[in-house]
């Protein structure tokens, strides 16, 4: 294995990890407010198809991104209304969102399967990209990769250092107490869910506009679910999410690595690697259940019913 090969692999790991990073960043904010949205896969698929359709019909990838974000947020709004206003079960509602999004995306995208568009071009950052090895791995990506990292920094700052972050944490830990001291729990949760949806949409757009600039049914192949595992794995910490996303990215392209090293294993078997990796990760996190309980937002997945306060 030469250095060029490793460079290529790490470059690809970041590229493959970026959609996971985007969606997990949205989900972590959502979960910090105490809402578990299992509809990630559905929102991501809708983001992907709408992003692609918008870009395909207007010729502008930027409009595609915008459309995808809007779509993701709209999808999450359905979820938010059911879960926050009608107090439906978060798990069941999330599943419904995924099933709905999977079906609807396949339905509205059926006309453009196989079409291609001009995706995003890489932006080579001057000077930084000239650093040997590192420059190639980190500074020759497309715009969204850079944006995802900036977003990660921004989210880390807001959740850890600001009053908004404190309120988010308070609502996620004990919504009844937050309500009692005058925090508008529903508003905070709505905003958090919407942000999660927007990020899922953006992540979907990354798939259909950048990663493989085309639309195929179910093209996210479980990334929304993997992101959910990633958030737990990262103990709800943004720094860990960045690292974890790139690790998962690496796991997803392991088949390339193995083939590059001259192994010949059925590609069907290799394609299960990211899922197997996810299961292993979940076993590792679950084994330290006490720690997980300590770190998870206390009210995660539990409904908050202001009507029952009385």
């Amino acid at each position, binding site marked *: 294995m030469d250095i060029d090969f490793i460079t290529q692999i790490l470059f690809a790991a970041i590229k493959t990890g970026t959609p996971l990073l985007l969606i997990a960043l949205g989900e972590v904010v959502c979960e910090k407010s105490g809402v578990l949205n299992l509809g990630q896969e559905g929102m991501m698929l809708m983001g992907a198809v709408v992003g692609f359709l918008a870009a395909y019909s207007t010729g502008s990838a930027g409009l595609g991104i915008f459309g995808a974000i809007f779509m993701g947020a709209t999808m999450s709004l359905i979820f938010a209304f059911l879960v926050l206003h009608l107090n439906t079960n978060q798990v069941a509602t999330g599943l419904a969102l995924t099933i709905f999004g999977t079906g609807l995306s396949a339905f509205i995208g059926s006309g453009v399967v196989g079409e291609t568009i001009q995706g995003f071009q890489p932006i080579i950052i001057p000077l930084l990209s000239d650093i040997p090895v590192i420059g190639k791995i980190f500074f020759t990506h497309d715009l969204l990769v850079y944006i995802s990292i900036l977003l990660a920094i921004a989210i880390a700052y807001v959740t850890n250092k600001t009053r908004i972050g404190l309120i988010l944490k308070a609502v996620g830990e004990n919504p009844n*107490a937050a309500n009692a*001291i*005058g*925090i508008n729990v529903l508003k905070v949760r709505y905003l958090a869910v919407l942000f999660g949806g927007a990020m899922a949409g953006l992540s979907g757009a990354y798939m259909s506009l950048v990663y493989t600039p085309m639309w195929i049914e179910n093209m996210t192949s479980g990334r929304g679910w993997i992101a959910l595992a990633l958030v737990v794995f990262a103990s709800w910490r943004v720094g860990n999410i960045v690292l974890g996303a790139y690790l998962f990215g690496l796991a997803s392209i392991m088949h390339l690595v193995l083939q590059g090293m001259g192994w010949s294993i059925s590609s069907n078997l290799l394609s299960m690697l990211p899922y197997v990796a996810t299961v292993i990760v979940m076993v590792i996190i679950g084994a330290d259940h006490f720690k997980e309980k*300590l770190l998870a937002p*206390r009210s995660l997945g539990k409904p908050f019913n202001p009507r029952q306060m*009385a």
Partner: protein
Amino acid sequence: MNHLNNSSNHAQQGRQSQNPQRLSLINITKEYPGCIANDKITMSLAAGEIHALLGENGAGKSTLVKSIYGVVAPDQGDIFWDGRKVIIKSPSVARDLGIGMVFQHFSLFETLTVSENIELCLSKKQLTSIPDLSDKIRQLSRQYGLDIDPDRHVHSLSIGERQRVEIMRCLVQSVKLLILDEPTSVLTPQEVTNLFTVLRQLAAEGCSILFISHKLHEVTELCHHATILRGGKVIATCEPKNETSASIAKMMVGELAEQTAGYAKKQGTDTVFSVNNLSLSPLQPFGTTLKQINFQLQAGEILGIAGVAGNGQDELMSVLSGEDNRSKAETICLENQNIGRFSAGKRRKMGLAYVPEERLGRGAVPEMSLTENTLLTHSEGFVQQGLVQWKKLKDYTSQLITQYSVKCHGERSEAQSLSGGNLQKFIMGREIGQAPKVLICAHPTWGVDVGAALSIHQALLTLRDQGAAILLVSEDIDELFLLADRMAAVCDGYLSPVVQTDNTNINEIGQWMAGTFIDEEQSTMIDTSSTSPTPSQHSKKETQA
């Protein structure tokens, strides 16, 4: 002595008063499906006044203060603040007016620090007016003798300390009205004294205080005025210092007021249940570690365990009942059999019944019928070849309902449709119906009205007299003195020595609740090692047979 007030007359007083009250409520009404929680309630509070709001559970106290604090919107009626009509839509509106509230179950965030908890309560404007919040907390802490460290995480604080944080929240905002919902129910008697000192100091500075309680001696000691609610209505007002506990009790519960002179104490016979050197780490984050617990429970006695919530009672209960069966087999003994590893079901078959603290969501499944809830713990005789004999079970349940006068629509009623007291009577009846050798009973009359509490007490005493051993855990120290034949206290996972109730007093138990026995206990543990279940040094206090 006519305490009854004409409400319309009172209303006019409120409106036309020359010297406006800090807070006036006029005809506040709130109705829930099936019950009127507040029925035209009129009352008022002056600046610097400590006002008691008295009433039984279900009298409408909580609903009323939630209306004042903006958590509940009243259906009708007006609220006047400093003579001005206000609509308090949400807690944040209340906060802006200068109303602060200390909840019975605190509204604190365990994973945050004290100062973060306080910061969350402040508006941006308030926050900018305070240059350094931590300094401000330290300064107020000194001023009122509250002893709060702003940098500690709330999960590491005791219940008493947490209450002080809640009070500090209100102090930082310099509230003009402080509402306290049953603040003393979670404190040791000594902590209560300290709280009263703080409240008197605040009132002297002009802060109005609305003090909710059902402990009458506290009200007579502390409050200037009292408003008494019954069935959602203002039934009387009085000046507590001119009254006795008995006279106020009569206003609270009406004709039901029978002050029990106390029940006869009994001596137990043989030891049926014992706990030997039980130490266990908690299952839950922020739980309490149980430390070297020893006691013996005898047939025909009630052993009471006092303590402030969160000192290991929950952990102890689940270890004794078998919900948590991680402890060593020999640490728990039922009729000479080591049962530490046995599951709850197996222990129950051996004659160990358990009435847990949470009635709904543990003692009974909320959305299941009473018949199904009978089957929850009482399957003996109702299951044949794996199939449930529903007919027989229904008949038995109906019989339980009659026997324990459980008010409900019948055996089909869902557990959640029953009032707390009636559900407790049902659960108690179900557990007693299994003729247990040992009954473990946690907070049996918590949140229960006087009538139900009386019949629950009676049921416990009857069971004792039939020869069962009863372990009674309660935060209500008065109840323990009333029922228990022997007593002990828990603090920080340690159990104090066990004494005859007749040989102790509220002061000693109060000090034990605060942990004064712990050093002594630990040292004896080292002396006697783990072989002896009861440290001999305590024999002067132990007067067992």
